């Protein structure tokens, strides 16, 4: 197999980042605490790429992304808690199960509600997220393993940085290949103008559902990894505020840009932790205030997002000319 140039640089960049992290681990610069933050950032990258497919590339305004993240986390976590004993094979199977459950639920809910437009779709998915949260809070009545409103613990913590890094890499490649495939093009055309896409013979329903299922399955996968990295799952971690997190990462990064989503996801997770350190114990109450101010100021300064529609070269397959170089100013919520 001949490796194309950009793909080669992609892997070279990945190997370099991996080596850098390892070197920082060995030299003690990366404390276990910051390692945890880095792992969290990579998990968020996976979930945010899912929303990027749904909203950034297909233009379907979803405010319920965290629900699928939670479905994946609870499914994978509960399976491994009951059947797995730190067995690696079982870990991967449970991740797949988490992604599959999230994807399946997305298929069932997506087929009817993706007919809704813009804000109406947003509020319907938000409502779905709240229904899932109520389900998580009462899940222990059906399956005591799930812990209900008090949260669930006991999942074997087998996901380490190496595994998470490799999984993130696989997901980035997968999303890249999807975005630049015929399917991805069809999705982008739906974002730009759904009616025109329909007229051009694109089965819009099929592609919207496909993007939604794929994006939600990625959220489920991210959730599954989360369950194996953080010992405690709680319904409140997967409610609509968490969905806003994914949304603002995708929007601040720039709709229709994988680069933007990845950079913003990592930046955002680190920003929150850096704020904790910078503010110190005396001003910790100000963290939420400053977080909110940064959010408002950055969106006012750059309403089209950090990388609106632009992509780093190494994320673009070689055989394609750069078609995404133009800055979008109106990649709006599909209406």
């Amino acid at each position, binding site marked *: 197999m001949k490796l194309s140039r950009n793909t080669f640089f992609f892997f070279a960049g990945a190997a370099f980042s991996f080596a850098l992290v390892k070197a920082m681990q060995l030299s003690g610069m990366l404390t276990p605490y910051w390692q945890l933050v880095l792992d969290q950032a990579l998990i968020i990258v996976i979930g945010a790429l899912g929303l990027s497919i749904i909203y950034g590339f297909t233009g379907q*305004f979803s405010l319920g992304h965290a629900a699928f993240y939670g479905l994946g986390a609870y499914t994978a976590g509960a399976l491994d808690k009951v059947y797995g004993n730190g067995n690696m094979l079982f870990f991967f199977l449970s991740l797949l199960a988490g992604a599959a459950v999230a994807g399946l639920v997305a298929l069932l809910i997506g087929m*009817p*509600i993706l*007919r*809704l*437009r*813009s*804000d*109406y779709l*947003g*509020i*319907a998915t*938000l*409502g*779905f997220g*709240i*229904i899932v949260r*109520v*389900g998580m*809070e*009462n899940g222990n009545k059906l399956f005591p393993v799930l812990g209900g409103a008090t949260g669930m613990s006991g999942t074997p913590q087998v996901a380490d940085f190496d595994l998470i890094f490799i999984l993130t890499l696989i997901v980035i490649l997968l999303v890249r290949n999807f975005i630049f495939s015929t399917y991805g093009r069809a999705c982008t055309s739906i974002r730009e*103008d759904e*009616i*025109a896409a329909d*007229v051009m013979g694109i089965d819009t329903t099929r592609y919207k559902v496909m993007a939604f299922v794929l994006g939600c399955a990625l959220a489920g996968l991210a959730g599954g990894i989360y369950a194996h990295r953080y010992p405690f799952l709680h319904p409140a971690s997967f409610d*609509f505020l968490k969905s*806003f997190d994914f*949304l*603002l990462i995708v*929007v*601040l990064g720039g*709709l229709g840009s994988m680069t933007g989503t990845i950079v913003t996801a990592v930046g955002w997770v680190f920003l929150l932790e850096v704020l904790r350190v910078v503010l110190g114990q005396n001003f910790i*109450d*100000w*963290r*939420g*205030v400053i*977080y*909110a*101010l940064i*959010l*408002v100021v950055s*969106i*006012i300064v750059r*309403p*089209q997002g950090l990388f609106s529609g632009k992509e780093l070269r190494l994320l673009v397959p070689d055989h394609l000319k750069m078609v995404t170089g133009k800055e979008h*100013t*109106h*990649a*709006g*919520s599909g*209406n």
Partner: protein
Amino acid sequence: MEHFLEQVLNGLQLGLMYALIALGYTMVYGVVQLINFAHGDVFMVGAFLGYFGFAVWGLPLPVAILTAMVACALLGVIIERVAYRPLRYAPKIAALISAIGVSLFLEYFSSLKFVFGPNYRVVPRPFPEVQWNIAGLSVSNIQVIVFVVVLFMLILLQILIYRTKTGMAMRTVAVDHNAARLMGVNVDTTISITFAIGSAFAALGGVLYAIAYPQIHPFMGIMPGLKAFTAAVLGGIGIIPGAVLGALIMGQVEILTSAYISSQMRDAIAFAILILVLLVRPTGLLGRTETEKV
């Protein structure tokens, strides 16, 4: 039967309060097509200011309510100026993110110790609660007050929108900003007025809520705000009677679910009904379907 009717009354009380908040959402949406996520937090600020007014500063109740309404109207105008106006011609999603930011700002800023503080506060009753027995049905004076006040405000709003020049300007801006500007309407002022009225209504809703369910804290606005917004969508966002209808349905669903099924299920069932309604009528109960042009 009496029990059922009493629950319906409770649902009516809650629904009318949701209506006060939903009106602000629907008016702002009608005029600038923005989901003002910070609206629920303006409601919270209103509840706190009302509480401080009559319980801490010792103002008479109507004065306290008026103070809260004026202050929140001002707050609404400032929010629009600072966070939404710079984004009026940006993608819609940018303004929504800004709204989420403002919402978080109000919540966390209010939680600071020198502002409202992070704790729950118990609101003392400004007047004793009285239960009247009307035809075997127990009705409290708070329910009557909520009913009268909300009805009065609804009539006032109806007059304002359909009988005054300001109302006509609002309706014009809702149809088309640019055409309104060409017709000599000051679009910026009209939008500010819309935010002021919506926020004042939310503040009134907040004070009534604090009197009826006497416990307040800086994050209390999230759920009522979300429910009221859902109510506005349920009725057809941008349509004022729709907001009231949606709010009344939400109130009934919530109270009846709590009473007859389980109080834990009430949010789930309320939102399940929303999704079902949207599937049948994608623009809400009273929403018009617009034909789309390519």
